[in-house]
């Protein structure tokens, strides 16, 4: 979707806070929030909406005002409420309602280390598909505007670039309009280099490049 999250190339977002030490959390609540999100593990139905899509559909003003961990908590609460595992009255009262449904967590102190270390690769080495493009070839990012989740940033659409590498076959991550992943669409993912001038015009430095990984469905012959 053409949402606020797709912000590559926007102006006016202000200065960058460049001084920051290397601690992972800068307030106790950030640490508890992150721990809470990881400790919850999966819940609800097997066919879940794409987690990133659930961030992307937040109203733009909220998206920009919320801090990163705050956004995760908001999405977690929305999801728990959608699954009826948390009620508005529980939130209002700050207490669990004995009558409301619950579940037994699959993530526990005993298996959390294994959970955090687990690889979750989307690469499909089991799928053999002939690649449509190869390194060195010129391509164009399609001008498409899907309403679901997509990994093709707006600022690349319609622009020409060069394939740098074929990264193999990966499950497609785009979703339908409701945020559900489109099934059975594994395809090659390529690293594509665009010149800064192609993307931003003649004022850009002629040497500079911007790279991204793009699924084959995003690309066409120029």
């Amino acid at each position, binding site marked *: 979707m053409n949402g606020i999250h797709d912000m*590559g190339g926007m102006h006016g977002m*202000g200065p960058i806070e460049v001084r*920051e030490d290397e601690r992972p959390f800068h*307030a*106790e609540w950030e640490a508890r929030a992150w721990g809470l999100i990881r400790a919850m593990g999966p819940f609800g139905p097997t066919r879940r909406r794409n987690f990133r899509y659930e961030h992307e559909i937040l109203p733009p003003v909220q998206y920009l005002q919320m801090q990163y961990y705050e956004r995760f908590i908001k999405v*977690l609460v929305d999801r728990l409420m959608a699954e009826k595992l948390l009620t508005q009255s529980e939130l209002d009262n700050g207490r669990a309602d004995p009558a409301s449904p619950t579940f037994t967590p699959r993530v526990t102190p005993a298996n*959390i280390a294994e959970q955090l270390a687990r690889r979750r690769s989307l690469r499909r080495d089991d799928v053999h598909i002939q690649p449509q493009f190869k390194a060195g070839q010129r391509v164009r990012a399609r001008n498409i505007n899907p309403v679901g989740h997509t990994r*093709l940033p707006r600022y690349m659409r319609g622009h020409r670039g060069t394939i740098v590498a074929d990264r193999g076959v990966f499950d497609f991550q785009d979703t339908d309009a409701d945020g559900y992943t489109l099934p059975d669409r594994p395809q090659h993912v390529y690293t594509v280099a665009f010149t800064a001038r192609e993307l931003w015009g003649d004022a850009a430095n002629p040497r500079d490049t911007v*790279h991204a990984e793009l699924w084959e469905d995003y690309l066409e012959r120029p």
Partner: protein
Amino acid sequence: MANAADKTGRRRFLSRAAAGAAGLVSARQIVSAKQADGRAQEPDQGHQTVPSDVALRVKALESILAEKGMIDPATIDAVIDTYESKIGPRNGARVIARAWVDPAYRKRLLADGTTAIAELGYGGSQGEHMVVVENTPSAHNLVVCTLCSCYPWPVLGLPPTWYKSAPYRSRAVIDPRGVLREFGVTLANDVQVRVWDSTAEIRYLVLPERPPGTEGMTEEQLAALVTRDAMVGVAKVSRPRGGAA
């Protein structure tokens, strides 16, 4: 969305949640052992001001979910401990230092980042497909995720606030040289800037240039010089002060 209604509902929730949380959250949950180690309770000066109601909401949510048996606060403690003591930019710094002292390792690292990084014992979630890009006198690499905040956790830990922020995500691709200047790095016009927007499953680590004057340093001393910012590409690694080498 009805903002006014949201706000009223939120305030009502907060006042009640505060009362609930105060009564329910155990002393162990509020005063975790980590606080005794001195983690900041307030946002640092210079950081985005975080409204205290967020802290309150997180605390209330944890207590409700714990009461319902849907989470174990000890699992949360274990997650926090992992990110504070096991997964972080010191891992990446060891990878970089090894690449600086061992040319064969550097070659393997640039050819297959995932496997070479696993040699040092690092891998897992958000590091499944690692690509290492090398800074040289003629090319500088900068990593961003414009759509989200994708970041190589096993080697760099959780991303800093600026990496997740709108100013960095919006400008890194259109004005990388301006972004670098803000971080104190000025590049000559004939140095190529390569920006890597982490749109899919590849995660990037920048191999910075080894600073001059470090020829006599051990791998461990070199790792201490490597900063998180240098491995994202917004800084260069500085030579040690005071002639330690």
